[in-house]
């Protein structure tokens, strides 16, 4: 079963965090090794980090079907920072992986414990239905 783990923690006004260099490096190294670990366990389907939200636009179609873009956004609005899609044997395994991602190191190597939204990816139905 596949799950999407989403890190919804980026605030609209956020740019590059003002962390000490070694903490930033440790954070990046953690993220890279986390993906590598998922790849090696045969569970990784996809993983992407997204560009900073101060570049984000929200688009709607106008009456003529042409795009109407919206942005810049209030500092407090939260954006998706990145996601992992994993193929695992149980929901518990997906939660355990989310907890690992949540504990990514921040300033001074302290775990960030950021919330990770875990959503199951839709699939086809089991054999028989009424």
């Amino acid at each position, binding site marked *: *079963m*596949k799950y999407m783990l989403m890190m919804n923690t980026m605030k609209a006004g956020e740019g590059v965090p003002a962390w000490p260099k070694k903490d930033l490096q440790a954070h990046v190294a953690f993220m890279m090794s986390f993906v590598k670990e998922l*790849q*090696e*366990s*045969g*569970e*990784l*389907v*996809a993983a992407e980090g997204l560009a900073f939200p101060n570049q984000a636009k929200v688009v709607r179609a106008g009456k003529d079907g042409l795009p109407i873009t919206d942005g810049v956004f209030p500092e407090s609005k939260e954006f998706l920072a990145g996601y992992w899609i994993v*193929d695992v*044997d149980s929901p518990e395994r997906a939660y355990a992986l989310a907890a690992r991602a949540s504990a990514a190191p921040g300033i001074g190597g302290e775990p960030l414990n950021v919330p990770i939204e875990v959503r*199951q*990816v*839709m*699939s*086809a*139905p*089991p*054999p*028989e*239905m*009424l």
Partner: protein
Amino acid sequence: MSREAGTGSLEQQLRELVPGVLGAVIRRFHDFAAAEDAVQEALIAAVMKWPQEGIPENPRGWLIQVASRRMLDDLRSNIARRRREESAAQEAEKVAPAPEMDLLELYTMDPDDTLILLFMCCHSALTTSSAIALTLRAVGGLTTAEIARAFLVPEGTMAQRISRAKQSIKASGVPFRMPTEKEQGERLAAVLHVLYLIFNEGYTSSSGSRVHRVELSSEAIRLTRNVHGLLPENTEVAGLLALMLLTDARREARTNAEGELIPLTKQDRGLWNREEIREGIALLTRALAKGAVGMYQLQAAIAAVHDEAVRAEDTDWPQILALYELLRRMSDNPMVRLNHAVAVAMVHGAAQGLELLKTLDADTRIGGHYRLDAVRAHFLEMLGDRDGAITHYRRAAERTTSTPEQNYLIAQAARLSEVN
């Protein structure tokens, strides 16, 4: 799948040879993981060469030779590498003589190799998904790319999954030989479970939104047929094969041209595959006559009762109910109890069915499961409680993780809402 083709195609013939070839190479080199890679390379070589050069007189011997040569090349390059690293004197002792080709071995085949390999690949040391992947590659002869496509994961991920599965087998020290008679029962149950999951994966596609991926279900049927050929007296193997055939028979009727799900009662039964039904029923009849009825035989028997009804209203529900009574006594599975409740509703009325659902609400394994809501909605509709049915169809739609099923459930709620 690129190698997908009708029966009798080159790929199909090649894949029938895989267990026998792999068995021979493992016996010669005593390294399952490396032998498995070498056999895959031999298969690729055959696919490239045979169409031009013609099929060799002894295809199995050809594959064994090519795979063995590959193994020897690897051994030699490993030795050469180590030579560079260590002194030649130290190395001299370690260079084993190249194993000689035993011509007799090339022409004989141990039919048990398929079983031994299945026992290995479905070993309890592996996770279910690893066991499935390894079985499809080492016994089914599918390529990593094909397996990755079937499960909609990147090829690199699937390659890792297979390589880790092989490492687990190595670490657990499972020998390449037939398990003792005492072990066989339990190990066979694990094998049948993996084959059942491969079939279901193909029939229902747990990944992606397509309802069927025929390749995996036909592969599961092929492998189960081989096991049945090796263990013709085993009634659960026959039962599983019958269950697969009797379920697969309905495949064409299960969805419409738009990919929407059609429930059993609304299917065009003219589209059901009579040949599969005939074979499934024949298998089941022989198995049931031997006594010792198991879970797969009972499920196959239920599928057979459905398949035998010319119209949905001809379905022998009392017989289905009796079969679910037996299943319920054999297993405490809440899905069995839910299906039993459906049979009760069909025989004794929806009110009695609803009563049975109440006990399931308290069962943490199924309480809150979308299927409980879907069945309740159906019962409420049968009883004329339209609003209640709409509420539960919608709730089921919110809870399912399957797109086609969600579409179906939303359509049920919409159908009832639009009636004036």
